[in-house]
């Protein structure tokens, strides 16, 4: 298991949290909560080693569109970049319902 953390500058306050997914094979769990200040924090634990650059590319792309101040925790059991992005977008959708 590998732990990876990233920080991104953010501005917009959000009020609702969201929980999505299951730590099953090829799947992941996303916990998205309101953060503090003007910075978003991402904490990833993944069962697949050696993909830090790929995670960074996915999170860079996510935060290029998303501006909420959040704390995101991802528990991953081998999700592909595509499924990671879909789960993140699903979490955002639930938090903005």
């Amino acid at each position, binding site marked *: *298991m590998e732990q990876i953390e990233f920080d991104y500058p953010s501005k917009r306050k959000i009020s609702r*949290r969201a*929980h999505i997914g*299951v*730590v*099953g*094979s090829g*799947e992941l*769990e996303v*916990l998205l*909560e309101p953060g503090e200040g003007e910075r978003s924090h991402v904490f990833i*634990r*993944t*069962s697949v080693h050696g993909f830090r650059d790929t995670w960074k590319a996915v999170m860079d792309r996510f935060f290029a569109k998303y501006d909420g101040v959040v704390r995101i*925790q991802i*528990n*991953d*059991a081998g999700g592909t970049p595509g499924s990671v992005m879909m789960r993140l977008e699903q979490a955002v959708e639930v938090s903005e319902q």
Partner: protein
Amino acid sequence: MITSRDRTNFLNRRSFLELDARGRAAALFDEGTSRELVGPFDRVESPWLAIQDVTPQEDDGCVVMKGKIAGKAAVVVALEGAFQGGSMGEVSGEKMTAALDLACADSEKGILTSAVILLETGGVRLQEANLGLAAVAEIMASILILRKHAPVICVSAGTVGCFGGMALAAGLSSYIVLTREARLGLNGPEVIEQESGIDEWDSGDRALVFAINGGEQRYAMGLADALVEDDTPQIADAVRGFIAKGLPPIHRSSQVELYRRRIGALDTSRQWDPSELRRAWGTNASEEDKR
């Protein structure tokens, strides 16, 4: 023969199997009455998985919800089959035990609280070995106390089914609800094949596995109380029905003499066919006991 009505029913079904544990638990409550206890944001995860290089899940694969079913107080504990095979660890086991004990405490105060356990599990989580075994023992003890007051209903819908120590827990429950996609058994087919060889049981033979462990067979043998389709309203109806019915006159696991007699009468010198067992044991157990 498949009729056009069967086809329409199939297409209109709301699959229970396709829901995750949280979705399954929530679907059983009267609308707007449920709330989750010790949810993922409380971050009560297994302390043992990360040190063994396994990614934990924030609810440890065990969802606890409290609310009302058929207007009566109820707690639902759902195991997530997709996380570590729904296995029972220290945390998931303690969540289930605590939920059952709180239901028992409420029942003793006069607020009868039924428990519904959604079992998709291979049993004890091997990474937590003895703690998982201890958890199963505590769950069984808690079921035995709660079932004096209010029914404990176990549901296994599939696709994992219910095996290992949690099958023993299911055996202690007041009512068991299964679908055709569910399997119920003590040692799973893979375990038997691994321990006794492929001649004993070919776990890849799905027809054989379902002929023995499958929900339809278990129901026909009198080891389950309802066989339902993979349809959320049907499963919720079955659960509501048993909660409304209250405690059974006698629990299945208390019918020791009946089952001793049945097992004693089995001729083990030859291979039995699953359909023969249905005929031999299929009568409703409590009716046979009355005779």
